[in-house]
């Protein structure tokens, strides 16, 4: 509680922080990007605030909730547990690149809609990226009730109680013909 004014003497602080910057080159949703970033900038903040890809959400910054899940070089990863600079040279895919360019929903998104697999929608992009990565991994997904719940564990949802998300995963697998020939 000093006599000094609460506000900075110049009335305006600088436009951006004084952190040193490193050159970062990467591919995001098919576009080649080159930016200077602070080494401590999290990949989640880079995507959201530098690139405006705000579909990737941040819920805990500890890797527990899964909201910030994106794909790094083809595999789902927590963007809050990666530095942007770690992604130098990498290929990133976010929720904005899941539906077709004309806006047609991906079968996983369509299934979430059909099965009421979302309420507030905040955790939804993370779930979709996780399921997408799982479906694209070169193995047959385990589509039993337990198998799907195991696939979804690692993403927290506070609204749905998960049941309709489980149904959506089953539905998506059918739409994508991943649920075995006899059922297709």
């Amino acid at each position, binding site marked *: 509680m000093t006599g000094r004014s609460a506000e900075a003497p110049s009335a305006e602080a600088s436009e951006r922080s004084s952190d040193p910057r490193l050159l970062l080159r990467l591919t995001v949703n098919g576009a080649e990007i080159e930016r200077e970033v602070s*080494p*401590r900038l999290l990949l989640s903040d880079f995507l959201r605030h530098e690139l405006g890809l705000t579909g990737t959400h941040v819920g805990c910054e*500890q890797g527990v909730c*899964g909201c910030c899940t994106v794909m790094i070089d083809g595999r789902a*990863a927590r963007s809050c*547990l990666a*530095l942007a600079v770690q992604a130098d040279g990498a290929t990133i895919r976010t929720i904005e690149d899941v539906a077709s360019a004309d806006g047609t929903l991906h079968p996983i998104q369509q299934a979430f809609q059909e099965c009421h697999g979302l309420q507030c929608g905040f955790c939804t992009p993370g779930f979709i990226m996780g399921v997408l990565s799982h479906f694209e991994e070169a193995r047959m997904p385990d589509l039993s009730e337990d198998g799907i719940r195991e696939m979804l564990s690692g993403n927290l949802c506070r609204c749905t109680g998960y049941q309709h998300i489980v149904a959506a995963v089953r539905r998506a697998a059918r739409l994508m013909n991943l649920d075995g020939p006899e059922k297709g």
Partner: protein
Amino acid sequence: MKPPLFDYLAPVSVEEAIAARARYQSSALLAGGQSLIPALNFRISHPEAVIDLKGIESLRGVELQGSEIVIGAMARHREVELDEAIFKANPLIRETLGHVAHIVIRNRGTVVGSLAHGDAAAEMPALFLATGGSVTARGPGGSREIAAGELYRFHLTTSLEPDELVTEARIPALPARTGWSFQEFARRRGDYALAGVCALITLEASGACQGARLSACGIASTPVRLVKAEEVLTGTSLETETVNEAGRAACAHVTAPDDNQTTSAFRKQLVQTLVTRTITRALARARARL
């Protein structure tokens, strides 16, 4: 929750990385980052420099070399988990990895990172102890091998020097006539376990117990070999009562204090239960391999 400022280095060789480490009072090695970055986000860790190992080609990959599985420092959990050759050589690895956090974390996190981090509740250090693996540590003075039994000093504290870097870990393939099991009790799927137990049971051709290697995580200030339980089993014919006695004997290794989730008494019961169940499972598998 945002990281403090640090210097960021991305060396392309082990030598460069070791030289970088020597230049700073405090530095952190970044492999998968699944433990380091949360610690940075919470500002629990504030190193002067973060040294990213991703550019070092020689640290990548996992392979079977004779009777040893050699895991490079940048090999991700999931890569090791899905490798069929590794699964055939030692199926305990996949079984244990299935309990390490969640798939998305395993996509990034590295096996060597987990071993070198030395979390007393983590699964892989326990597996490392039970299998009798070793790591190769490189420092300014050269390389040295550290056996699993020599690595862990305390929770998050190992015998690695601050200027060293683990380049690879070696885990023996499963010996003949050996059964395996990893089981744990966690409040939620993927959480650190309140207790986890790894069991390897090797039988004589006759079916008697030639040797047992048991370890646990989450019950002491380091992962521990459950030597007292092993002693009960070795040389016996593994009757149910012997297995139960091993479970009781293992309780002596529980030294973790009471915490929010667990009293020491409950943890002992967990260990006893898990030891009994893992031995039973490993035994069934060993018998199937006779």
